[in-house]
């Protein structure tokens, strides 16, 4: 069962990435073509999932919105790992005071309910891909702040780092040559788990209408738009909502699989 889920998720995610790269291969319809004769149309052979409130083909919109979701999820997840990695890598070689300041900043960011700060920031413009990414990175990096510092600290106290020091290696060299290679595998696991969570956060922002409103080409925005017509045809918002759930589920399964299979000794000791 576990193995089946993993294989399914793996191939599903590869398929999603293909869709994100070349959406034209998977649909012949134009995602933004409006046809007022087809408003809230039920599924038929030409429009396999029916049409939305402006008569646009839902299947092609789902396909073309994949790029937005996958790209934003991965980009945000990558940046929310990179920022605390560099920051805590820096404070690692500094005194107690700087370390405490860093931890206090992390705490302050973390006390904000995760989406509240993102909502605040994404309200600063009319939305769009970059606004959403900025908002999610600024509100999400602190969640990894303590964990990544703990990973680094654990490696830094190992004997081989001490040896490198006594051989006269610089802080810079120690960080990139000795510490970083040893934390790469827990970071990859974290990346997979966080990408799913970030896709959830991204779609929630879009669902609240903060990513450019109901016409933005993203799954969350499709749910947001379809919500007003839920009495007439609830499938319009249920399809994209389920697509989000399925994608996040696959990232989650992949992350958990990597975690149980390749859980490195460091993160095991930390727990």
């Amino acid at each position, binding site marked *: 069962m576990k193995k089946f889920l993993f294989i399914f998720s793996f191939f599903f995610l590869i398929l999603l990435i293909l869709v994100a790269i070349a959406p034209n291969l998977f649909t012949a319809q134009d995602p933004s073509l409006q046809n007022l004769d087809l408003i809230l149309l039920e599924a038929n052979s030409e429009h396999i999932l029916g049409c939305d409130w402006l008569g646009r083909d839902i299947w092609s919109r789902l396909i073309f919105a994949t790029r937005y979701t996958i790209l934003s999820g991965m980009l945000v997840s990558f940046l929310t790992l990179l920022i605390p990695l560099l920051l805590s890598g820096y404070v690692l070689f500094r005194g107690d005071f700087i370390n405490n300041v860093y931890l206090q900043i992390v705490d302050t960011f973390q006390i904000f309910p995760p989406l509240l700060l993102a909502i605040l920031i994404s309200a*600063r413009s009319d939305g769009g891909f970059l606004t959403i990414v900025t908002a999610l990175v600024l509100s999400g990096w602190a969640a990894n702040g303590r964990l990544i510092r703990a990973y680094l600290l654990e490696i830094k106290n190992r004997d081989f780092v001490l040896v490198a020091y006594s051989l006269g290696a610089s802080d810079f060299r120690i960080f990139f040559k000795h510490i970083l290679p040893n934390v790469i595998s827990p970071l990859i696991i974290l990346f997979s788990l966080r990408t799913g969570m970030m896709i959830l956060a991204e779609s929630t922002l879009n669902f609240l209408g903060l990513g450019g409103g109901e016409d933005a080409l993203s799954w969350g925005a499709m749910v947001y738009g379809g919500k007003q017509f839920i009495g007439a045809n609830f499938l319009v918002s249920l399809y994209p909502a389920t697509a989000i759930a399925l994608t996040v*589920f696959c990232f989650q399964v992949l992350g958990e699989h990597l975690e149980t299979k390749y859980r490195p000794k460091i993160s095991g000791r930390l727990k």
Partner: protein
Amino acid sequence: MRLLYKPLLRVLSTVVGVVILTYFVMASIPGNPIFSKYDKGISQEELNIKLKSEKISVFNVQQFLSYGKKLLLFDFGKSKITGENINDEIAIRVYNTFQLTVFAVIIFLSLGLGLGLLGALFSGSFLDQLFKLITAMFMSTPVFWFGLVLMIVFSLQLSILPASGSDTFVHLILPAFTIGLRPAAFLQRLVQSRIEEALQSPFVQVAMSKGLSPNYVLIHHALRNALIPIVTIIALEFSQLMTGAVVAETIFSYKGIGTYILQGINSRDYNIILATVYVTCLFVIFINLILDLTYSWIDPRLKEEN
């Protein structure tokens, strides 16, 4: 008293941090309240005069200090758009959201703890497998999916529960489940794994071999020892609950703090946004403080270390 000193100091510094952070985010918002107030049919010269008369500027030390003082004294002023007093409105909203969260927490705790215990008891069986699959699915499902599905099933198809409104207890049910279901899945997983771990440990075997009943051992020995990480995750999930509240309130048009935030954002009403964000953060900080204090009550070993 000595026990209180450290957490209280942390609370204070976090509150100050929150005030600074909200100020900087808000001051950098380009959308202008004047525009929202007078709509778009206004010329640049008129706008400049209005801007001067209403003293709206960015990054200003004096403004920041007076703003910080007002927040600390809970004086949120008036809405820039409608002119109504924010304090009155926010009191109603906070009360509504508080009701909703309490109900959601009851669902979250009873489902999470109950099913977690059940899963640990039937560890390895078919039921266990089923729980694992369902929790994995729930953990990766967006909060609004639950909201939509609950609404479709119970309001549109079965029409037994209202789809919107905030007047009676019945209106609480669907939003509370929307908020509570996803965190409950996280809690179920944690409780089950911790209890399974505790059941393997020597002190449980000793208690069993003394002849205590399995239920007694489960509650008084295994659960008691699993409690610390459980309290930690409850603290973490609380801010998730607040996020969930924003989403659930939007779906079910519930008059709470979440819909108030969005109202403020959509009309670019600085005062409303600041007030709501500040109050929500205070709420989360307060809950964290309480949980901090319960640690030493749950685990007396921590008290001695202090």
